């Protein structure tokens, strides 16, 4: 319940916010008439607003503490009716029937999308889908491998320039460039990975951040190689057996290619995650010393994570170059890396559906928030902060897999049988 103490606290918060926002909310200098306007009534709004928000904040924190954490990893069948809503919802959604149906619905929507919406919408969706793949790729490095990489976009740049340059000099087409870009991304991942194997946490973040910038700056200054800041123009869009396409057609076609790549990525990442190597990554993230002592070659596992993560960035780089038909180093700034990082963190580290949702939210939200043009980034920041406080694990948190055993059930039924006979006697 609302305590007096909480009200006092919220009042203090309100006072503090009034003080903080005083210069921007109350004082307005009219430079034309050379007068200062005092808008005192704004204080009231700020005070009420921050008071209510503060109360709400406290209430939600309390709720979160109350709900606590569920201990056991439960299988779908074990979820009971009194479980929390999110738990039941998850159980319902992972039911094979429901899941298959929702996959079909999502599939139909995805296919129909470019035909029912404008080219502008298709274009945005292509970008969002590209970030889904980038997010899934970075998720291998961060979410699964536990290595904070802030220079992920460098691999993306490698892919983009691979296609642009190969096309410029040798006329290589999109479909050939796609695997080459992916492979070069992976190779680049290994090359960067080797020297940073020993680093962890903050240090790794700084080194990768530096690496990302190095790639961008090299591309910007090595004119004879990359054409510098002018970039490379007239990169052909993806071809389809030499068929000539209008711009909207080409856009739709690109859309379907990207959708295909998204499905491919989800498939591969899902398999990797549930395999032996996925388990190694998980363990490596938890405790790398214990991991080595258990006989896992962490150098190999780390390099595999970086390379397999970088492959997707390389591949998407090729798609990016083909989609925009023009690339220059300005497309590969740290900001891009941060956005990809945000999709992973916001969506839920290590969780595939989480990263997908994260990427969609993060790319589509700013587009649709354009109505609030001036406050777009502010709102965006606020949403991120709120997310991190109330759902630090991301929108869709990663779940542990629960195993079922024939032997185990046999044992317990035997015990149960023994008990029941005991009662009869």
């Amino acid at each position, binding site marked *: 319940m609302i305590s007096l103490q909480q009200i006092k606290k919220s009042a203090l918060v309100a006072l503090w916010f009034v003080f903080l926002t005083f210069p921007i909310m109350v004082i307005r200098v009219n430079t034309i008439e050379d007068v200062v306007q005092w808008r005192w009534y704004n204080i009231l709004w700020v005070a009420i607003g921050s008071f209510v928000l503060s109360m709400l904040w406290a209430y939600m924190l309390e709720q979160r503490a109350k709900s606590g954490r569920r201990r056991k990893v439960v299988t779908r069948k074990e979820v009971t009716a009194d479980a929390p809503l999110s738990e039941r919802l998850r159980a319902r959604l992972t039911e094979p029937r429901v899941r298959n149906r929702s996959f079909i619905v999502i599939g139909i929507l995805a296919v129909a999308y470019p035909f029912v919406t404008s080219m502008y919408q298709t274009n945005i969706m292509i970008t969002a889908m590209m970030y889904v793949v980038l997010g899934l790729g970075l998720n291998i490095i961060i979410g699964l491998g536990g290595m904070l990489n802030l220079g992920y976009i460098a691999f993306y740049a490698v892919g983009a320039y691979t296609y642009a340059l190969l096309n410029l000099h040798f006329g290589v087409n999109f479909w050939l460039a796609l695997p080459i870009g992916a492979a070069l991304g992976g190779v680049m991942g290994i090359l960067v990975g080797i020297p940073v194997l020993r680093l962890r946490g903050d240090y790794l973040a700084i080194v990768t951040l530096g690496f990302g910038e190095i790639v961008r700056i090299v591309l910007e200054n090595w004119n004879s190689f990359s054409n510098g800041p002018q970039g490379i123009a007239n990169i052909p869009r993806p071809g389809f057996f030499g068929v000539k396409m209008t711009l909207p057609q080409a856009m739709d076609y690109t859309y379907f290619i990207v959708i295909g790549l998204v499905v491919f990525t989800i498939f591969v990442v899902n398999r990797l995650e549930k395999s032996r190597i996925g388990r190694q990554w998980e363990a490596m993230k938890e*405790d790398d010393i*214990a*991991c*080595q002592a*258990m006989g896992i070659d962490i150098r190999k596992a780390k390099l595999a994570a970086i390379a397999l993560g970088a492959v997707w960035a390389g591949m998407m780089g090729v798609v990016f170059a083909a989609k925009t038909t023009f690339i220059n180093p300005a497309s590969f700034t740290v900001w891009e890396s941060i956005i990809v990082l945000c999709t992973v963190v916001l969506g839920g580290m290590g969780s595939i559906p989480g990263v997908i949702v994260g990427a969609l939210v993060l790319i589509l939200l700013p587009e649709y928030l354009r109505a609030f043009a001036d406050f777009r980034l502010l709102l965006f920041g606020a949403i991120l902060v709120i997310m991190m406080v109330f759902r630090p694990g991301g929108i869709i948190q990663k779940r542990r897999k629960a*195993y079922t055993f024939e032997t*185990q059930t046999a044992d317990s039924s035997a015990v149960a049988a023994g008990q029941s006979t005991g009662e009869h006697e």
Partner: protein
Amino acid sequence: MVLDVHDLTMDFGGLRAVDHMNLNINEGEIVALIGPNGAGKTTFFNCVTGLYKPTAGAVTIHAPGREEETITALRPHKITERGLARTFQNIRLFQNMTCLENVMIGRDCRLQAGILGAIFRNRRTREEEEKDIHDSYEILKKIGLTRWVNEVAKNLPYGAQRRLEIARALATEPFLLLLDEPAAGMNPQETRSLVELIRRLRHTEDISIFLIEHDMSLVMTLSERIYVMDYGKLIAQGKPEEIKHDPVVIKAYLGEDVLAEA
């Protein structure tokens, strides 16, 4: 002799943590390494298992049915592959993974599947995975942890966490098990069941055991031979009875004055 450590020395800058240690373990033996806090026991362990690279000396293993091999300064995972498995003084489980997954990680170094296998999920990979789950479950059964198969490791009671560490180490199929203070923080009852477990394992698994321990009663009842370390040096070795009455050991543990008074 399954393990032979010869003149092992480990320096950290100017500090000599382990000073010309010699130690050996015979097949099927339970050997304990004891010593006051900071004597260098864990450092010694870390040198043997490859977490530290010793400054000088040689570690040789002789796995049953295999050639003798020097493993000094091999990387830790290579040493584990050769058949040395260890636990840690301060529990180092994979906290957010389930019991079964912890053991599966232990079994990992005995698996073959690679990245392509993971992506294509061919029959060999699937069969291996199934066998892996089955084997891991069997190990949990052996240690008596099946109640917690799907429980996340950090939620286990303390004693069970210690046992899970042993289970995980066993999963690597070792011939020599190194336990770093396995009874630390356990109550007497848990300690007793641990003693039983270790004895049983030696027979059923056909392994030798090397442990560091502070709990004297455990060391005296369990081990067949004892090595005593102080300030990085070996100060005594022998059977539990001999160690118990060795004045040098008593001095190291209780200080000079006690001996003088006695």
